[in-house]
């Protein structure tokens, strides 16, 4: 029998790590991630989870210790947010380039200064090119589910994966989360046995100096693994859906079947957008939502598919690449360039630093996209 608990997004992450049977956890507290590590500490202390929790002195060491554990062949997990993630940056490269399937929850929080503890996506998107898989969740249930999905995919392609949840909107919000039987989870996610590990009987040197003669080939293999990961995400999410009855996919489509225009967005704002879509539908508007769950590897095929079926795309970014545009906006446009179907794509930057995204904001953005100049970066709700 599965159980349903009313828990926060943070605790959904902790339960996800517990039920994925993480073996080594190394983490450092940061608002708004702290409850993840607090609950995991309790799980480790009371034996609910047979894992070693290393209480490190920084996020940099957290990732380093996870890498060490992964090198030993263990399933490693950590969680962080914003500045903690930024401090990890060097080791994020190390984890990916070293082919360690570490899984991490990142609570999306705006970067300082000024200090902000509220949500936006610049922290995780700044780690775009480190080689990590990135999954953006829209509900606590998805946070829980995606933990095991991420472990499964990552361990098959030997790459690390980051699941992302919005600060407070998910991290501190209580929602019902269904947790399946451990037996079923164990079947879905069997123990990790990496093909290469630190082994006295089969000694290797990991990460040794590599001359220009071979470095590029190792990077090629990572790109290849990302391409494989895209296939695996589709497969694993399908298997997850068949086993547990919940379906996500790299790009979740909501009321897109006959849609003439589509909103593209990632994170918890996507769920608010579903309500907004319902309201606009009632008013006769043929609009849908394409929620970007998977950011790396980028679901180009899914993006092109939906582009081929609509006349207009509206991208809402809770982030900005300074000096250019919203990051999802850019990625989506790049995905469509030189393809057959390139409907106009409007990009809005909204909700930075935790500014609330209401139904009215979504409908307002859609309305503004009717008249605005497509060549401008469209800031939504800026008071200047």
């Amino acid at each position, binding site marked *: 029998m599965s159980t349903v608990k009313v828990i926060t997004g943070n605790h959904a992450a902790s339960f996800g790590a517990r039920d994925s049977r993480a073996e080594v956890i190394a983490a450092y507290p940061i608002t708004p991630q702290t409850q993840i590590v607090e609950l995991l500490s309790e799980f480790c202390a009371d034996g609910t989870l047979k894992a070693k929790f290393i209480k490190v002195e920084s996020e940099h060491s957290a990732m380093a210790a996870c890498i060490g554990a992964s090198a030993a062949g263990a399933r490693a997990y950590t969680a962080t947010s914003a500045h903690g993630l930024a401090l990890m940056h060097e080791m994020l490269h190390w984890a990916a380039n070293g082919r360690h399937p570490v899984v991490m929850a990142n609570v999306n929080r705006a970067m300082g200064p000024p200090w902000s503890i509220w949500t936006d996506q610049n922290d995780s998107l700044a780690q775009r090119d480190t080689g990590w898989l990135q999954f953006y969740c829209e509900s606590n249930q998805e946070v829980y589910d995606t933990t095991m999905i991420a472990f499964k995919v990552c361990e098959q392609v030997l790459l690390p994966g980051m699941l992302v949840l919005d600060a407070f909107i998910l991290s501190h919000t209580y929602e019902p989360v269904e947790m399946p039987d451990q037996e079923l989870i164990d079947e879905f996610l069997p123990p990790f046995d990496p093909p290469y590990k630190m082994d006295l009987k089969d000694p290797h040197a990991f*990460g040794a*100096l590599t001359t220009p003669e071979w470095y590029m080939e190792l990077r090629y293999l990572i790109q290849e693994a990302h391409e494989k990961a895209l296939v695996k995400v589709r497969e694993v999410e399908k298997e997850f859906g068949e086993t547990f009855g919940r379906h996500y996919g790299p790009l979740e489509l909501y009321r897109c079947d006959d849609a003439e225009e589509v909103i593209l967005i990632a994170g918890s704002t996507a769920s608010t957008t579903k309500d907004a879509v319902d309201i606009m539908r009632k008013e006769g508007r043929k609009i849908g939502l394409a929620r970007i769950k998977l950011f790396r590897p980028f679901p180009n095929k899914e993006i092109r598919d939906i582009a081929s079926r609509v006349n207009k795309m509206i991208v809402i970014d809770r982030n900005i690449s300074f000096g250019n545009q919203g990051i999802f906006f850019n990625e989506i446009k790049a995905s469509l360039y030189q393809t057959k179907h390139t409907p106009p794509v409007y990009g809005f930057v909204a909700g930075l630093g935790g500014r609330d995204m209401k139904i009215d904001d979504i409908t307002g953005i859609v309305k503004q996209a009717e008249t605005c100049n497509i060549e401008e970066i469209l800031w939504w709700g800026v008071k200047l």
Partner: protein
Amino acid sequence: MSKSEKKMMRATIPEEEYMFPGTVDCQGCGAAYAMRLALKALGPQTMVVIPACCWSIIAGPFPTSALKMPIYHTAFETAAAVASGLKAGLNIRERDATVLAWAGDGGTFDIGVQALSAAAERDEDIIYVCYDNEAYMNTGIQRSSATPWGAWTTTTPRKHPKDRPKKNMMEIMAAHKIPYVASATVGHPEDFVRKLKKAKEIRGTRFFHVLATCPTGWRSPPELMLELPRLAVETRVFPLYEIENGVYSINRKPKQNIPVAEYLKVQGRFRHLTDQQIQYIQDHVDETWELLLKKEKLGRLF
């Protein structure tokens, strides 16, 4: 061979080699010899974690390896953290190995000190060896906080040599109340091997501060690889001692009062020093030695 001769000839350093010949270290490299000795002492059940340092090069480029043991190469400041994770990963899988973190002075005294301090505070079950060649030698001789007062490096030119004393890493590590802290040099192989063998049997964080000659950076003749650290000990510049569960014991108390000048004058990095500056070093060395003698007398300190 008489009985007493046999006793004298008894080899205390294991004959087994775990390091392949032909490594790409400089002539007279103390760091390379230190690893050779360490692996002999610790034996084949050892895994090595190496952050950025000379050993990132000495260990050999992909796809080669200088060691018969598994090596994990990691980022500069992460030796202690990766070693902690590695040990935890082995433990949870019920696998056993001695985890050896092997870092230079830059990776220990400077950029890695935060992760090392944290690992020691947690009393992680690892052996951490800092082979100290007293500057960033791998990047071409830049000063570190292990560089002694008065020394030339490329970032402390002769017109303005290092004007701060060497950081006392032994005391910093002892302050963490870990079970074992020891100094050693490549000029005292038996002593180093004995200490490693002892450390291997202890659980918790064990820290070694090993003076490793660097002819390239010290501007000294390569053939003095063994001799220079011995002089460092005889002149009390680098005392050999252990701190075992809070008890200090000095392993070598030189009977002769050899002036530090004897140690300094054979190294080009100290060539510019005036007599007055050498006297300053002598005074500092004497003070530090006296303090160490006092600590030894006090018995258990933590």
